[in-house]
């Protein structure tokens, strides 16, 4: 069986996370991805260190996680000769990705209209923070800032908490994911039309789409704002018991379920009086407060032994130390080793299996410009 994107060539001008996450997925599907990086510094993510963890004391773990299975070609696009080389590469490419702020690619002569002249079948894909028009177009398209502007910070945490951002770069990852959807839809459509396309996604639109269910409630419910539950909020729009509770020795997660049934199973008399399902939403804070006190009286395992056989939607709450020791994690075979120069780095794999096979590749992130010469020869630059 051939790979899904066999023979597809991607030129990736993007940096940090959103665009590189898109090209990572394309490379997982079998496309060849060449990072176009500027001399000396390269993708800024190379030196974006997180916490105090660096690989071999020098390189960013994040860079390695996002850029495995790609090549690196260095060129200074402000230099005319180098720009010519880039244009030759563009002629051969199927997909171009960038996530510069609006106007940057136009200024170097690589805006969509100009590039279309060079290669009319190219899929030209761009991610911005806030779209290319409007008051925020020149603002930094950074994940925390987009979460803050999009209203997402009012969905997690409890009622009394400050706005609480989601602790993973959801805006970057979702914009990258949506971009791949647009790219592949355009590539599919190219079979019929023979023409390329411009595909555009902004992080703000991506984060609004992520909230599509709850935003639709807002838009049809008199613009009522979300009210996070005061006790163990799991979702501002969902009834009790939805949330994570402390037990005698850890935590337990409880999703949707009947409060009456829970009361019986947990032998919690105080819950018996809530026998109207609408109360489970309207009175969720008082119900959850009762549950919160009650669940402290036994260990997580003891509660799970009672609830799981009754098919109540519940689970343990793991951190990485406990997750990685569990059979349920290990059976997924989510880890892979990649080789970058003389370094071995353990990372995760693509989450999708194709034709029964997990998609893995041991090719690590490229050193800056490591493929420049080889690509130059191959494409006669």
């Amino acid at each position, binding site marked *: 069986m051939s790979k899904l994107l066999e023979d597809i060539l991607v030129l990736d001008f993007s940096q940090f996370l959103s665009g590189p996450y898109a090209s990572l997925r394309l490379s997982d599907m079998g496309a060849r991805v060449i990072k176009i990086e500027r001399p000396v510094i390269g993708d800024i993510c190379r030196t974006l260190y997180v916490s105090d963890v660096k690989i071999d004391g020098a390189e960013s773990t994040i860079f390695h996680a996002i850029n495995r299975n790609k090549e690196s070609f260095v060129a200074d696009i402000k230099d005319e000769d180098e720009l010519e080389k880039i244009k030759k590469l563009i002629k051969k490419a199927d997909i171009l990705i960038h996530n510069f702020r609006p106007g940057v690619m136009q200024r170097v002569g690589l805006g969509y209209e100009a590039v279309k002249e060079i290669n009319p079948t190219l899929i030209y894909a761009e991610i911005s923070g806030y779209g290319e028009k409007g008051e925020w177009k020149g603002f930094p398209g950074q994940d925390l800032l987009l979460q803050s502007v999009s209203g997402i910070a009012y969905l997690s945490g409890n009622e009394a908490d400050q706005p609480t951002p989601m602790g993973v770069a959801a805006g970057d990852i979702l914009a990258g994911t949506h971009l791949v959807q647009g790219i592949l839809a355009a590539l599919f459509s190219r079979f019929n039309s023979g023409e390329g396309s411009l595909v555009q996604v902004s992080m703000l639109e991506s984060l609004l789409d992520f909230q599509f269910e709850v935003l*639709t409630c807002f838009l049809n419910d008199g613009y009522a704002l979300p009210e996070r539950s005061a006790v163990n909020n799991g979702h501002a729009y969902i009834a009790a018991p939805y949330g994570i509770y402390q037990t005698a020795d850890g935590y337990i997660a409880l999703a949707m379920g009947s409060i009456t049934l829970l009361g019986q199973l947990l032998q919690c008399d105080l819950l018996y009086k809530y026998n109207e399902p609408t109360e489970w939403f309207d009175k969720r804070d008082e119900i959850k407060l009762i549950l919160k006190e009650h669940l402290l009286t036994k260990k997580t395992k003891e509660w799970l032994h009672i609830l799981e056989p009754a098919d109540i939607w519940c689970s343990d709450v793991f951190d990485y130390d406990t997750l990685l020791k569990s059979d349920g994690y290990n059976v997924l075979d989510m880890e892979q080793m990649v080789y970058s120069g003389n370094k071995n780095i353990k990372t995760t794999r693509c989450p999708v299996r194709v034709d029964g096979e997990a998609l893995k590749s041991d090719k690590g992130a490229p050193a800056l410009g490591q493929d420049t010469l080889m690509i130059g020869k191959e494409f006669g630059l």
Partner: protein
Amino acid sequence: MHLPLKGIVVLEFSQYLSGPCAGLRLADLGAHVIKIERPQKGEAGRKLAIKNLWADESSLLFHTINRNKESFTADLGDPQDMQWIKRLIGQADVITHNFRPGVMEKKGLHYESVKEINPGIVYTEISGYGNHGPWKNKPGQDLLIQSLSGLTHSTGNYHDNPLPFGLGIGDYLCGNQAVQFILGALIRKKKTGQGALLQLSLMETLIDFQFEFFTTYFQSKRQHKRSAISNGHSLLSAPYGIYKTQDGYIAIAMMPLQKLNAAIDCEALTQFEEEDTFKKRDEIKAVISTHLLTGTTTSWLKKTQPLDLWVMPVLNWQELKEKQGYKILEMEQQIHLDDIEITTTRCPVRINGQIFLSGKPAPQVGQHTEHIKAALSLKYE
């Protein structure tokens, strides 16, 4: 409107969010999506409401996720109905289902048998935890998978309980990952005629979502810790986070500490070195928190934004809706359901400058059964 997936037929055997949100995106891009529902009751998601909001006999939530689709009812236990389903499969390009492992096998609709009918089919299977291992029969519910995947240790502050994302990130992202691979598989099918089996789970999706964290964990062998104050991302240094001001909140992303100091004039920050911004992040963030309470959000934005520092106000949806930066995105659209108008959001991807809109509402149970049967009869005569 040019629809890139025009002519593609998708049979959606899925329920709730993960599979149906994949179907929604494919529909928006032009595919003909047919929900296969059981007679009378239809998909289980019709009766799942959030905030007790209903559109008709089905919840507003169902209408949000299933607009722009058709409905075909069939009893998968009835041989005559199964004949129709098999005819439909013969005409389809894509199947999605998100039943627990084994259910489609029992109906005789697993990949091996469907492939016999239609070798080019792109068969997409979404599960909670994969098809093997101790969790395979556990409910594949979003909060539970957030809890088991370690995700709940990323949001909120150090002293908080494990805190879930207040949205169904596992369901939503899994559906979105599926769309990418369905499109990749359709592209391969165009070239080679091959069909594909695509398998993914919410658990694998949420592990991939945390790929930065896992890769860092594999290097350091240490569980990451949320910062005690204004946690925004547990791997990032001060000042990253959301802070209270005199009249609201402000989000501050990555920036050199002394640059921030120069802009907001906070004498107490001069005692910290840039290299301490991770190790001493709670001390530093405490200083910033106190200082930012002395001015309004607007006053801080005026001091920081002209210097291109990465800051933005924290908005709720009512505030966002009034902003020009939101309005120009044209993110809202109307769905026409008999005499009810529902306002919802649109697909976040633009192709050739065009947004994708459709006013077609979610179907009534079995609304299109007869029509589809008539069309199939013509094909098979």
